[in-house]
């Protein structure tokens, strides 16, 4: 069940549809860095429900072909510079969504249904640019009642960072239940874990409600401070200074390359010098 971080990264195939959470915690930043080192290409990323640092890093490193998300932002650190640059250069295909639609599409996959309805959105230009979304007339309504139908979304690979993992592959994500939905909806789930714990997390009634069962998890890699520079629940806060420094560096291609050399792939960078 436990493998190395680089072996975990090696399990993400080129071109895979990969879903990941944004910069609000449990962000798989260490895995994103390992994916950059592995030189993965053509990823189709899904923001659950939005995208942040890890996505910008992967875009900047040329790992990403497409992005389906509700927003891309570094939060307090501002816009996501490599995302904006890739968009201006036409290097990525962006599909704009809205947060509850990302959740609903994953929930449809979780429930094994081909589509799911959602209120709202009608009148938004999002709709005009989502040929995969559809508006029907609510068949339960006696009067006209247009409603959005969204297709199910089953990612090839779901990735996130968990606070704990046990030898059964059970991982603890606390109240972040959307990651359980992500795990259920994904064909494969690869997790980094802040720490490895003895025993079975599901045997503890207090912990079990925050656990994603190992049933859904293909492999786990231990990655202490694996969310950094994003914070992890009550373990450590977001490294706001680092994010600001990243945002500054990533404004240019050269600055981003220097960031990669320093923080992501010092060995590779050193070898290339």
């Amino acid at each position: 069940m436990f493998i190395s971080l680089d072996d975990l990264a090696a399990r993400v195939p080129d071109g895979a549809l990969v879903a990941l959470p944004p910069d609000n915690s449990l962000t798989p930043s260490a895995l994103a860095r390992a994916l950059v080192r592995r030189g993965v290409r053509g990823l189709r990323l899904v923001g659950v429900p939005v995208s942040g640092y890890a996505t910008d890093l992967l875009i900047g490193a040329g790992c990403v072909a497409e992005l389906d998300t509700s927003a891309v932002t570094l939060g307090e650190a501002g816009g996501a510079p490599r995302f904006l640059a890739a968009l201006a250069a036409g290097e990525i295909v962006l599909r704009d969504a809205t947060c509850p639609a990302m959740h609903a599409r994953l929930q449809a996959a979780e429930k094994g249904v081909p589509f799911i309805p959602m209120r709202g959105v009608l009148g938004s230009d999002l709709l005009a640019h989502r040929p995969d979304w559809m508006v029907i007339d609510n068949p339960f309504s006696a009067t006209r009642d247009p409603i959005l139908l969204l297709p199910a979304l089953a990612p090839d690979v779901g990735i996130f960072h968990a606070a704990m993992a046990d030898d059964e592959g059970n991982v603890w994500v606390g109240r972040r239940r959307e990651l359980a939905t992500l795990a259920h909806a994904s064909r494969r789930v690869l997790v980094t874990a802040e720490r490895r714990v003895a025993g079975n997390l599901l045997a503890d009634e207090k912990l079990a409600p925050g656990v994603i069962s190992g049933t859904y998890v293909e492999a786990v890699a231990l990655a202490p401070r694996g969310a950094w520079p994003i914070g992890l629940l009550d373990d450590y806060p977001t490294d706001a200074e680092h994010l600001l420094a990243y945002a500054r560096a990533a404004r240019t291609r050269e600055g981003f390359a220097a960031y990669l050399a320093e923080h992501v792939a010092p060995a590779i960078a050193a070898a290339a010098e």
Partner: protein
Amino acid sequence: MTPTLEERLAVSLARLILDPAAPPARHIAVGAASPIPAAACWLVKLSGHPVRLSLLHREEANPFSEGTCELFDLTAQGRIDLFFLGGGQIDGAANINLLGTGEWPAAGAPFRGVRFPGSFGSAFMYMMTPRTILFREEHSPRVLVPRVDWISAAGVSPPEVFRRGTAQALLTARCVFRFDPARARFALDSVHPGESLASVRAATGFDFDAPGTVPETPAPTGDELALLRGPVAAEMRATYPGFCARVWGRA
């Protein structure tokens, strides 16, 4: 005891929240990175009004236990009475644009305009919340446009489309606009100190109604300022340390 701009805006938002003509706001949600709306909500609550606050990014005793989809579910269930939205562009029909400017590029074509972060939950929240207060500090023809380039979320909908409400008002650093959904049009409600109908017209890209005499936005009272600087600042320090340090000099 001169109020700062942030304090004036927070107090203006609090008054819009408490507007007796609007449906009651028993449960208000505040999205990420919204310190001034959060301050307004705490001001309302700590003034003794019975209101439930769901602050998306509160770390301590966060009210959510179901993940980031719970805010949307709560709203879908009709439990959220009031929400705040902004926009990279906002137009005279209360359409908001969080997407970008220019032509919508073909898939994979280079993007030529200004790209905003994205729609977040706005396309859903704006239609499913009974009251939305639009809030954008920057009041310029660049932001307040005749017609947004792209609609993230529409200000009004045809009658057959299910929606619970729309914009109640738009607050900027210059003024308060009220929104009339029947006419899909803003009306100037009050101007902040130093502004006038003429200065607001000059800074606004869209047309709007205005009364013969435009009142000035009432200044914060001493009680309001005391509440903001004391108990409200104390509640907000953990979630918005930067904002609190800047506005109230607290670390």
